[in-house]
């Protein structure tokens, strides 16, 4: 049994009395000890999927229109709110993209970590403080004894993200979702944070869902990769298989837009066009207006998911078209 199993999850934005689908029935599973990367351009629904798993879509304009999310064998979507809250921050936790604004500005960072510990663990204040110090050491915040007393605005972006990670791993979650954890950070800090996440995973044996728009980030850290486009997973495979044997033209476009590390290039091949607006109806394959290899069939028929190779699924009528 997988740790997390998402089946046919559908999400929609309620706007002006209409429901505009943003995630159109996606399915994936995450095993213990595994890192799954979800990659796609902004607006593809990857962050909303993360919020749906965490149970953070309440009081937003996003509605869950169908499907199921099972965590440790239990269905989350029908769970009582109190039961669900007992999991949040405890068995499953999330690190957000914006370290600058994701911490409460009026409380000391130490107290913010203590809060989540006291919520889920039966600890005295001093025990929680002790554990907080160890957590800050684990995420490699320098001088943790001083830093626990700092307010968020007194820390750098990278340090704040480390605090966010400390907060997320405080209760040893089995599942850690990292939603663009490095996007807002400097390149050097990015690398450190990614290494930290990998290191923590090895030590805690939990599963990580890493969400990013940057296939380069995903390539370095993930065991398996799901590529999302306009609310569907268009390609999914182990990282090795995917990079060796990329089959979907969209994934190829994403790959081509990673700057190579070993040499300077003057021109990056990017995907032409832009992500279509949510309320725009696209017949056939959702990617066809931007696909360089589009054929007539793509304009009319929606491709079904199928196996391209063992453990490598794809949603495309003409995979690896550029070969022929």
């Amino acid at each position, binding site marked *: 049994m997988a740790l997390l199993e998402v089946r046919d999850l559908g999400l929609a934005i309620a706007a002006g009395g209409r429901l505009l689908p943003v995630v159109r029935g996606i399915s994936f599973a995450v095993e213990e000890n595994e890192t799954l990367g979800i990659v796609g351009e902004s607006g593809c629904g990857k962050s909303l999927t993360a919020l749906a798993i965490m149970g*953070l879509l309440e009081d937003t304009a996003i509605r869950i229109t169908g499907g199921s999310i099972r965590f440790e064998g239990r269905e989350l979507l029908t769970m009582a709110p109190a039961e669900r809250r007992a999991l949040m921050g405890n068995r499953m936790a999330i690190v957000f993209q*914006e370290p600058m604004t994701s911490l*409460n500005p*009026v409380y000391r960072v130490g107290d913010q970590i203590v809060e989540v510990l006291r919520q889920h663990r039966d600890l005295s204040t001093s025990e929680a403080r002790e554990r907080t110090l160890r957590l800050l050491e684990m995420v490699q915040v320098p001088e943790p004894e001083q830093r626990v007393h700092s307010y968020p605005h007194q820390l750098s972006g990278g340090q704040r993200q480390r605090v966010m990670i400390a907060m997320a791993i405080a209760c040893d979650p089995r599942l850690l979702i990292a939603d663009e954890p490095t996007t807002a950070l400097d390149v050097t800090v990015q690398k450190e944070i990614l290494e930290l996440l990998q290191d923590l995973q090895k030590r805690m044996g939990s599963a990580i869902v890493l969400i990013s728009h940057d296939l380069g980030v995903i390539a370095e850290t993930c065991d398996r990769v799901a590529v999302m486009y306009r609310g569907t997973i268009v390609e999914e495979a182990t990282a090795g298989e995917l990079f060796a044997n990329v089959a979907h033209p969209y994934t190829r476009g994403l790959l081509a837009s990673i700057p190579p590390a070993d040499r300077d290039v003057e021109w990056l091949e990017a995907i032409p066009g832009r992500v279509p607006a949510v309320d725009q109806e696209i017949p056939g394959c959702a990617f066809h207006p931007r696909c360089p290899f589009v054929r007539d069939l793509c304009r009319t028929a929606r491709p079904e998911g199928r196996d391209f190779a063992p453990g490598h699924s794809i949603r495309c009528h003409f995979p690896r078209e550029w070969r022929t």
Partner: protein
Amino acid sequence: MLGYALDRLLTLVPTLLAASLLVFLFVRLIPGDPAAILLGDAATPEQVAALTRELGLDQPLWKQYFLWLGNILEGDFGTSIFFGKPVLAVIADSAETSILLAVTTMGWIVLIGVPIGILAAVRQGSWIDQATSGLAMLMASVPTFWLGLYFILVFAVGLGWFPSSGFPSITGEGGLLNLRYLVLPSLTLAAPNAALIIRLVRASMLDVSREDHVRTARAKGLHPLRVAIKHIFRNALIAVAGAFGFTFAALVSEAVVTETVFSLPGVGRLVVQSILRRDYPVIQGVILIVVVFYMFVNLLVDLAYARLDPRVSLK
């Protein structure tokens, strides 16, 4: 903290001087001989001549101002025409009522405004929210004296729960029980102000609830009420604290109408009666003291900001 407070105090000095100049000029703007105006109609020519000398009215205006300011700083605000007592003593007599009225009113404002505002924000969009928001706006649209008159009619005359007018000092007979005289006036005065606080608390909380750190708090698995109070309201308080201070500072003068309705011997009623009696020394003194109090409270609000928001540096 202390350094910052002193610093802010210093920046207030020019404003305070300018305000005192206006208060000083105020009597000079009334047509006629200032000495005669300050002494009232019953004054003898000898008294007028004496005061003219004392105030230096034969000297240039700027000298008169500094003479006047010097007297004020020594605690000499002049003599009331009506009471024949030093102005400062007259004001001191009404200070107890004003301060107690302002404090009890503030209590109601916090007690009514904060929980209802939080409730409306937590239940945003529900009928509770719409009802409280509408009711708050209605409350802010009622003339205070009209509300006060009906409070008297219902709760004092009709039900006999509270006295309808006056306020015997709590140091005299009756002691603290005399505070029941302030129940209706403070509720009257609180109504429109609580309405504003309800709307402000609601709006500020909705602003804060859109911030990222609230999502982090929810992701910790905290109870929604804990998120609402410890995380959202605590941040909204930064915006609301200013309004609390501002409201409190303004209460002393806003109480003018309420004190008149309930015949309370407070500073507000003293101003109105002094205006109607043309007791200019008292008017001058009260205005000056109210302005100083008003600015002082606003200074305290600034200091409170620094305590509430760690991002505000005291440098």
